[in-house]
């Protein structure tokens, strides 16, 4: 484990113990923790990645089989919406911000082929020492007041699986964050939380195992909501093993391995949760009452790819092909 990650682990553990009353760690890490905290409260799925991973991992042509490519799926709306404004917009944001946290909820299926969509909100965390200069990247967007907050709006034309244009909202917040959402209410709620006094938002109640996954360069957490789903098929809840309450996945991109943890209300551990294909279920091992764990290869082969394809469906990122 690198020194950097050891620092993050320690910081996160302390923060979790103190309910994140106020982080004493460096500004960037504190911002990441706060961004995650805000999103974990409001969204069913929250994921975190370094921007250097997002900018350097795009599949080159469809011939590539890479299980790791699934790690990008929670961030495709960010990449696609920025890319629509121009390559410099995408690269500018990726260069200025060190990491991105995303929250997603209300999953819906595409019309025809495409990826499952959701109400999504991204928070970019400014690189240490960087000066926010977002205006230069958003010349193609409309600069306007969004419910009293200056930001940018633009519409992306219909894309695969979605026959209507999608409006995006973005703003620079408190010289530390960049917020982008496809949902106005989420945008308002997140920007409001990020500008509130830190003590009012820094609490990770109900997020078990935080210390384990928050130290990773990539993590994804889903607190399974079984009621109120708009489209249970898209959300995966129509077929997900009923006793699964939460799913964690974390990895260190480039090392070709990820860890999956599944929390279950069934402490007898008789039935393995169906979050992996049948052929991969043997990887799930009991880690004590109510906890399953699997070490998953993120290899460039079909079985690994299929396993991640299956898993990410249950993480809210199914693809209709």
């Amino acid at each position: 484990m690198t020194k950097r990650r050891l620092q993050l682990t320690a910081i996160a553990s302390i923060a979790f113990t103190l309910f994140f009353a106020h982080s004493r760690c460096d500004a960037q890490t504190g911002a990441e923790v706060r961004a995650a905290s805000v999103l974990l409260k409001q969204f069913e799925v929250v994921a975190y990645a370094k921007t250097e991973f997002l900018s350097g991992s795009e599949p080159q042509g469809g011939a590539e089989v890479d299980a790791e490519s699934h790690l990008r799926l929670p961030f495709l709306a960010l990449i696609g919406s920025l890319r629509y404004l121009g390559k410099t917009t995408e690269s500018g944001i990726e260069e200025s911000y060190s990491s991105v946290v995303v929250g997603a909820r209300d999953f819906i299926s595409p019309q025809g082929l495409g990826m499952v969509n959701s109400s999504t909100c991204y928070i970019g965390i400014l690189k240490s020492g960087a000066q926010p200069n977002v205006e230069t990247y958003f010349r193609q967007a409309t600069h306007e007041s969004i419910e009293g907050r200056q930001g940018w709006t633009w519409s992306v034309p219909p894309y695969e699986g979605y026959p209507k244009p999608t409006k995006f909202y973005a703003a620079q917040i408190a010289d530390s964050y960049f917020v982008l959402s496809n949902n106005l209410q989420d945008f308002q709620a997140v920007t409001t939380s990020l500008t509130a006094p830190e003590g009012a938002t820094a609490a990770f109640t109900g997020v078990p195992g935080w210390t384990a996954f928050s130290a990773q360069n990539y993590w994804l957490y889903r607190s399974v909501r079984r009621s109120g789903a708009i489209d249970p098929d898209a959300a995966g809840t129509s077929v997900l093993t009923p006793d699964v309450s939460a799913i964690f996945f974390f990895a260190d991109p480039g090392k070709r391995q990820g860890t999956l943890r599944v929390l279950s209300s069934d402490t007898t551990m008789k039935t393995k949760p169906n979050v992996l294909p049948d052929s991969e279920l043997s990887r799930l091992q009991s880690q004590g009452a109510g906890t399953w764990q699997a070490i998953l290869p993120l290899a460039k082969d079909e079985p690994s790819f299929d396993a991640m394809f299956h898993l990410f469906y249950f993480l809210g990122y199914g693809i209709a092909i």
Partner: protein
Amino acid sequence: MDSPMSRRITSHLLALALVLFPVASTVAHAASLDDVAESGASAHFLRHGYLVKFRHHSDSPGTPNLQVYNSSGKLLYELTIWPSRTSRLFISSVDVGPDNAFAFAGQVVRDDDTKTNFIASDHLGHTAPQYIATHGYLASQISMADDGSIWAVGDKPSDDALLKSGSSVPNYDTLRHFAPDGTLLDHLMKRWGDGITFVTHAADPAFVTGHLSDGSVNPTPVESLTHSYRDAWKPASDIYLRTHGTSAFLYDGRVTSEPGHTQPTLIESDAATKTNSLRYVTPLQSVYVPQIADLSISANGDIYSHQHITSDSSVAASVGLFKLLSEKDGTQSHWQLVPNSLNEGSQESSAPSVASGGPLSKVTPLCSPETYPCLAYDYYRSVTFIGVPTGANHNFWFVETLYGAPYVTDAGPSIASCSPVSACGYIERWILPGTVGHYAADNITLATLWFNSGYTTLNCTKVGALYTAATIWPTTIAYHLTGPNSNTYAFDMGTAGGFTVPTPPASPGW
């Protein structure tokens, strides 16, 4: 026509027709000759003792586009059909009637790019055809009756643009009967089904919405191209329009899983009694293959077919002659093999005589190596999200079946939106002519070719089996985001065709 192969096959065809149908009113079109691969040329066929060949597409006035030979294979007439002010000409169908009368149908594209659909008639040796404008109706197959009248089955291609623009288009009859002078004598078989007054486009561009005379909307949308007679001019269409006496017979061999279309049908329309009847025909094989290469009516009104029978284990086809027999209730018919007429497993087979049981002639199977190359390509492309590749690939097939008609067949979830309902339904498949599938991105010029069967006649049986499997794909296989999905469909199609396709990259569900 001078090659040994063509002379041999011509003689075979003539022998077959003369023995079986000495005074046949019509003889089918699917006999193969070595020059059928000639661009846009029809196959040769026999009509009232003449062997006829014509060119479907012409774009210059100086090139003969219709040849008529006598029963000895001697060229009697070489005609250039070219109406005035024509820049391009499409001849869909030609038929020769009694007393040297002949008719043809198609579409003229004028110098100013306007299009005129027509049916025309003339006499061999005479050079002044009488053209009958059929307006929006394009006769795609015609048959000349003994009284010189002309039966036609067709479609209105111009309705496509009207529907696309949001206009409504009236329902119309697809089967029409014209007097020799062009008078429309009768018409029947509603394009969009009985009771429909007009149609408008549906939300899904592959469907139209039918409107009833009382102003209500037909609750079941109609798939736009299904059961259209637009392609009846194509030899592989499996549609045969024949006449006998005062009746026209329309055999439609296309089979789908839709109710009412699970068996071939034979419609008889009698111009004298003004009666119509429908019979269902039990196909020879449980797995449908477009296998009728020839359908004819003998002098006494019996209906015969020349059919190919394939098996999963054999590329070579068996060839046989079959007679259509009605069952007791009169609504169902089945094919009965003419005794001793079956020849198994050879590519150039010997079909014994009906009457004597001795050798009759050699006939070339529909899918002969000399004349009908076929291909099947599997393509994949990445499914995208806001234009960004997801990394997961969707597969589809591009096929050229018998006679080279290209199709794309692709699949996906059956209903336009899975939300807010709780399921995406079943795996729906589409078979669309051309190079683009149901999804615009399923375009062979944009996607990546993964599997290439090769362009060879040896593939025809396999491609036919693939096409058949696509045709009969059921509506009962549930679609799911983790599979089965479109890749499952593509895999099944390759398997049905007997192709060994390596697993395409990043294609879950395959």
